[in-house]
């Protein structure tokens, strides 16, 4: 063991004398620190936004409930904040949070338009993405490894020292093993120390920290072995670097881009805007078609209210909310096709990621951080569940003229409570299955 550390100690001191390696490691540390700080800042902003919205949401809703007294008006003027709070690992893997929405203020109106409204925003804005830790780890760290390891052998060959080193060293470990290990450990620390700092600030679970460390080490080992193996018998460092950079471009850019193009070609999906348009047209048309047509369509889904659909005046809230629901029902096939396509794309992206280690790592870590498309799908489903509970809460008051007083309002569904219940149910299912 003493011999082992002696070799590491010698190579550590030797590395400290090599300026270009020190510059490279410093750059690595700075880039990693920047990505962590950028992630922390982004998550902090998201949390602040949510806190601000939460406070405003309660005040707004209470004001609406005080101002209006009939259930239809209360439902119409009350917004309900729904949100997907960032996990304590999200700072490291922002994932899809800059593409999929993580907050919606919804009303009891037709839901599809409210969900897919943001889909019609300029998607180009989301293209640039954010420089987070996972991006640095998956896309940039291979390049840093290539720079650090491509000339491990070649530089010694071109300078004429290789044979002298090999014949002098007591063992291969003493030379290449210790030298490679020190470079690897240094790079790993420069990348991971900022992450650990961020994890400490964010209160990240130890298990998540361990898992990120595990996957990071596996990933960096993969690139290190590739770089060392590629350069082992080569005599020209630039040639080794060119080959490795070619592989990096292939894995980090070409395969993901081709994969994305292929998946989009294979899986056809309606646009979010089409869903919004279909739903809005159905809602707008409802003003002009016979009320019975709307009510019949509503009753088909909610037969329990069939004895309460008769109207005594031209406008009644129950009809208004019925055609909102019918608008959603009309857009439902498109909405389902959109979600099915999104799930299919996610599955195919999983297959594509098997050909691209950077993509695979991003997928694993964003899943761990709950910032991937799956998390977005789950959030969307939570909104749908909440919207349904909200409707089911209001329908008795709308269809049977029950009084909606403070006592009843206190039992109104809350998105936060719903997600807590769902989480508890999920945990309980996990416990039972174990």
């Amino acid at each position, binding site marked *: 063991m003493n011999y082992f550390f002696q070799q590491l100690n010698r190579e550590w001191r*030797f590395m400290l004398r090599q300026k270009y390696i020190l510059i490279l490691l410093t750059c690595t540390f700075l880039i990693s620190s920047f990505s962590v700080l950028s992630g922390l800042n982004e998550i902090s902003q998201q949390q602040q936004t949510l806190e601000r919205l939460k406070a405003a949401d309660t005040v707004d809703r209470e004001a609406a409930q005080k101002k209006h007294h009939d259930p239809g008006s209360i439902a119409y003027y009350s917004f309900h904040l729904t949100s997907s709070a960032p996990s304590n690992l999200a700072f490291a893997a922002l994932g899809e949070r800059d593409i999929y929405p993580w907050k919606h203020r919804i009303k009891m109106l037709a839901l599809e338009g409210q969900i897919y409204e943001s889909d019609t925003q300029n998607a180009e804005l989301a293209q640039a993405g954010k420089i987070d830790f996972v991006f640095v780890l998956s896309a940039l760290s291979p390049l840093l490894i290539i720079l650090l390891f491509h000339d491990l052998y070649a530089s010694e060959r071109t300078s004429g*020292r290789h044979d002298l080193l090999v014949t*002098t060293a007591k063992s291969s470990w003493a030379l290449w093993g210790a030298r490679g290990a020190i470079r690897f450990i240094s790079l790993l620390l420069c990348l991971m120390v900022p992450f650990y700092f961020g994890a400490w600030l964010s209160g990240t679970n130890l298990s998540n920290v361990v898992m990120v460390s595990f996957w990071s080490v596996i990933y960096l080992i993969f690139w290190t072995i590739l770089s060392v193996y590629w350069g082992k018998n080569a005599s020209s460092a630039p040639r080794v670097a060119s080959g490795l950079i070619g592989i990096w471009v292939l894995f980090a850019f070409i395969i993901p881009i081709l994969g994305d193009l292929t998946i989009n070609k294979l899986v056809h999906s309606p646009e979010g805007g089409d869903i919004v348009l279909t739903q809005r047209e159905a809602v707008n048309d409802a003003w002009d078609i016979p009320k019975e047509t709307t009510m019949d369509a509503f009753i088909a889904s909610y037969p329990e209210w069939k004895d309460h659909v008769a109207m005594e005046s031209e406008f009644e809230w129950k009809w208004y909310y019925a055609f909102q629901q019918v608008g959603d029902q009309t857009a439902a096939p498109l909405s389902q096709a959109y979600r099915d396509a999104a799930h299919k794309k996610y599955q195919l992206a999983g297959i594509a990621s098997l050909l691209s280690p950077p993509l695979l790592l991003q997928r694993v870590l964003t899943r761990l951080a709950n910032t991937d498309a799956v998390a977005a799908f789950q959030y969307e489903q939570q909104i749908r569940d909440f919207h349904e509970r909200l409707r089911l809460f209001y329908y008795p008051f709308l269809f049977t003229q029950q009084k909606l007083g403070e006592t009843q309002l206190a039992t109104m569904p809350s998105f936060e409570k719903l997600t807590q219940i769902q989480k508890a149910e999920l945990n309980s299912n996990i416990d039972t299955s174990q």
Partner: protein
Amino acid sequence: MVTTDLSNALIKADSLCVSIKNKSILKNLSFHVDTGEIYALLGGNGAGKSTTLKTLLGFNTPSSGSVTIEGKEVNQALNFVRGKTAYLPESATLYSHLTARENVNYFLSLADIKKTDDEINQAFDRVALQADARDRHMQTYSKGMRQKTAIALAILREAPIFLLDEPTSGLDPVAIDEFNQLVRELASTGATILMVTHDVYGACQVANRIGLLRDGELVGEFAAAENSRIDTEQVHAAFAQRGTA
């Protein structure tokens, strides 16, 4: 020509054949170097000198025949062989961002050998490396000074066998004289030295025996008579007979 007595042979190549990328480089090469002897393998470009040296260091695998050091097959006892040999490459490029002392310390540590500063200074004294140069970065060194540092390292390794690859190539005449003297001094203390060179005059100045290598074959051997040197003209004449041996 020389009679062959292998009883004292420290280095021995026996019908050695080496091919690289399907090209036959060494063809039935046989020679031996005795303890305390200075043996020069002399040959022109492409004769197979460096291949012979690299095979002795275990970088090439013989396609047939054998090469042994202290009776052990090189490729089967690589660590043993490398522990017994001190190799001096043609261009002794040590780390230019380190001083001579730091270079020596680094390489000794690689070999897991511990030496005191006094012992290192003694080695530097022995190769006549100026005291004020020892703690200077080697990027300021001449080739002769780098060569001296590498020899100091070889001395400190206390290896009984020195393998020298074109050791005087690029040195000025004064440096060559100093080097030759150093080599003779090493041999006088019991070191066995095998050097490959294309310098006929230099080889005759320092070697006890010379093997003439041509197209991977040993085409002649010359030995010095007692208390005299090998006849340069005779070796030169043989060296110049390209393709006729």
